[in-house]
């Protein structure tokens, strides 16, 4: 490891109503991979935005490459050699790889853009990174992994001395993750400092040298990655003991009645002849690869998308669900995998979001009973530990995990008997994750039934009483929790291949 390339000292930043960064220290050596961890809303992204000039800090100093600096725009930071590879990639899909890499600083030949030279330079970059990407390919034709490589190539082409990775592996396959790690190791050798934001514990040991943890806007501590355990890190992150309750056998009582029965459901190409039963008090895991039709099945049951054929029975009675309204009237709630698009109404407040699915219960004459609405919501804010100053807070101001809890609240207030949770813990931190697991277990104890769609096998194995596996729009198998293993699930999930 070389000398310090970056020192951030006493960084403070306050937004109206939120003390986002509280006297935070952070340092980075040349050639170091430094993980930055913390729950959602802990201040990791804010710290990086202060570093790259997107936000202006209130106080503190940033020393970069020996000089005290204060960038006023990401562009300035970029020119100085600090580049972020964002979690949500920014590129223009209809342009080529080379055009994207050199966007805004194209090579010119007179007044014309010199495409040939850009392609040549891009090819050189990829050669240096030992990856195989055609610079003339359209960006939108690449896989997410390859798109990310292009972003990294762009960063390197800026002569970056510091590269910030914001949850780079969130959307990558395992092979792509390996490729990424190879590139990161390579960057290390070139003495580039790397800040690596992640939620994944396993990666910390594999790829990082040190790990710094933030909590509630404050710096908590730094550990040497190879000398610390997963639990050391988690304890720093949440400051409390994590709820652990792995499942070894089904918790569903013998002879529990079937509450939901789906027969030969067909809906487009992703849902073909799907049949299954859900019993009272059961958590039914839905496993499968991305695009295997789990979400589509859920949406068809919920009436969010039209179905072609198939029957749905609730408590033995055949029901005709044509719209989400019918589904909700039949006591089904659906927590979407994409909460920003389908879950929350960001410009409205917590209470308004919470009562959305059963506003009629809060009507007094012609008026909304605001008092009742607020007090009911406050109950759930308390019991789900939603971090919000008040029930009047706009949901847009909450962190991801807390937004997810607001969506949960919506269905709890509605008191649905059948809940479909689609990736309930995606993109949220360990603390909130554990809260949600705990809540799910409590719900089934109360006699609710849950369908849980999840792409994380450990999560499926930990929560489910029974597991349905889907593959290419069909149900490829069903496993009891006693017989299920990761290998068996993967085998069923890839049956077509």
């Amino acid at each position, binding site marked *: 490891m070389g000398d310090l390339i970056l020192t951030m000292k006493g960084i403070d930043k306050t937004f109206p*109503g939120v003390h986002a960064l509280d006297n935070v220290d952070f340092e980075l050596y040349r050639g170091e991979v430094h993980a930055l961890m913390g729950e959602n809303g802990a201040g990791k992204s804010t710290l990086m935005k202060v570093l790259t000039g997107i936000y202006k800090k209130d106080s503190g100093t940033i020393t970069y490459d020996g000089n005290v600096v204060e960038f006023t725009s990401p562009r300035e930071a970029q020119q100085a050699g600090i580049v972020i590879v964002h979690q949500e990639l920014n590129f223009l899909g209809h342009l080529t790889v080379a055009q994207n890499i050199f966007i805004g600083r194209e090579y010119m030949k007179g007044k014309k853009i010199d495409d040939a030279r850009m392609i040549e330079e891009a090819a050189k970059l990829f050669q240096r990174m030992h990856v195989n990407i055609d610079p003339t390919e359209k960006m939108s034709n690449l896989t997410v992994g390859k798109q990310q490589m292009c972003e990294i190539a762009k960063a390197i082409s800026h002569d970056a001395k510091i590269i910030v990775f914001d949850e780079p592996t969130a959307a990558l396959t395992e092979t792509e993750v390996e490729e990424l790690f190879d590139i990161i190791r390579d960057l290390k050798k070139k003495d580039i400092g790397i800040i690596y934001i992640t939620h994944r514990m396993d990666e910390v040991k594999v790829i990082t040298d040190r790990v710094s943890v933030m909590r509630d806007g404050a710096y908590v501590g730094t550990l040497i990655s190879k000398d610390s355990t997963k639990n050391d890190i988690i304890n720093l992150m949440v400051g409390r003991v994590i709820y652990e309750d792995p499942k070894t056998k089904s918790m569903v009582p013998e002879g529990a009645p079937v509450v939901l029965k789906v027969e030969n459901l067909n809906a487009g190409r992703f849902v073909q002849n799907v049949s299954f039963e859900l019993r009272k008090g059961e958590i039914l895991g839905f496993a499968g690869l991305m695009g295997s039709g789990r979400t589509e099945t859920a949406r068809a049951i919920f009436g969010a998308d039209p179905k072609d054929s198939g029957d749905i029975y609730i408590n033995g009675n055949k029901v005709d669900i044509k719209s*989400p309204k019918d589904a909700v009237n039949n006591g089904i709630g659906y927590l979407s995998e994409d909460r920003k*698009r389908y879950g929350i*109404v960001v*410009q409205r407040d917590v209470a308004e979001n919470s009562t*959305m699915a059963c*506003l009629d219960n809060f009507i007094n004459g012609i008026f909304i009973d605001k008092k009742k609405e607020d007090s009911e919501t406050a109950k759930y804010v308390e019991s789900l530990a939603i971090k919000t100053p008040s029930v009047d807070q706009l949901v847009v101001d909450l962190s991801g995990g807390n937004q997810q809890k607001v969506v949960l609240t919506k269905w709890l207030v509605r008191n649905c008997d059948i809940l479909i949770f689609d990736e309930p813990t995606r993109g949220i931190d360990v603390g909130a994750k554990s809260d949600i697991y705990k809540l799910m277990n409590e719900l089934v104890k109360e006699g609710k039934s849950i369908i849980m769609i999840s792409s994380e096998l450990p999560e499926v194995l930990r929560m489910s009483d029974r597991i349905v596996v889907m593959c290419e729009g069909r149900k490829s198998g069903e496993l009891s929790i006693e017989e299920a293993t990761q290998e068996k699930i993967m085998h069923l999930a890839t049956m077509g291949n």
Partner: protein
Amino acid sequence: MYQIKQNPLIKKIGFNRIVLCLVLLIMYGFFALFAKNFVSYNRLLSAMNYAYFLGFLALGVTFVIATGGIDFSIGPVMFCAAIMSGYLLTHYKWPLWVCLITSIVIGMLYGTLNGYLVAYKDVPSFITSMAIMQMSKGIASVFTKAQSVSWPQLAQENGWYRNLIKIKVGNTYLPIGLFILLGVAIICSIVLNKTKIGRYFLCLGSNKEAVRLSGVDVKKWQMLAYIICGTMAGIAAIFFVAAYTTVQPGYGDQYNNEAIAGCVMGGTSMAGGLASISGTFIGVMIISILQEGILAIGLNKNYQLVITGLIVIVAVYLDVMSRRRKN
């Protein structure tokens, strides 16, 4: 956990509306200084003539904008309603009260058509309302064979409807129209902020899909916003003729823009999900005083168009900026 520091009184009234009131006062002061005889009760009454019909248009369109839509047809729809019901009154000799109701019904029908296309056929409101704007102009012209229509004067038979805006008491006039507009605005405010209707409008304006997936029949509610808007245009027609009596087919576009300008100025966001009735009310007052002042200062009406255009740009710009800051 966190505490927001803000003066509770300012928070309650809204910073934006305090600024608007100041703008209104400063503008009035400006015209009082530079226009001859501007400070008089009659001037105010004359400004209010403009505020009444514009107010109803703006209140109606506030609901549509709250749902994330837009309605560019309200001005011509108002004219169409005024022309057709006026023609029924003067040419076919229908009773006055029937004609007044007809005017409202015509507005409501246009709103229903608009809302149906937007909510159930997924046509962008921008397009449907443009089409309806053209249609309503054409229908009015065809109906009267391109003749303008003059509603009766106060002294004439069937002239009592003009009392809807002001009534003579002794030597002075009582601005009845202002009371009616205020009353309707208060009802609108209650509907928007305290009832299920307003709640659904605002929520679906912010994220329609999330509201649909909460089991709400969003199409019904979305259509209702346009029906309310159209109905308000029908009411606006009555107040337009009560103020100016003569209506010519083929016009009315200008009033869309002024009504929308009033909303946007008042803090209703073109992106949907945020709306303020009191803001719209003050916005309409600003535009009405502005148009009266411009005439009083001796400039022609075209200047008003320029200034209203500028106001819209500034108001939308401020809205966009405040959003960007939040993100």
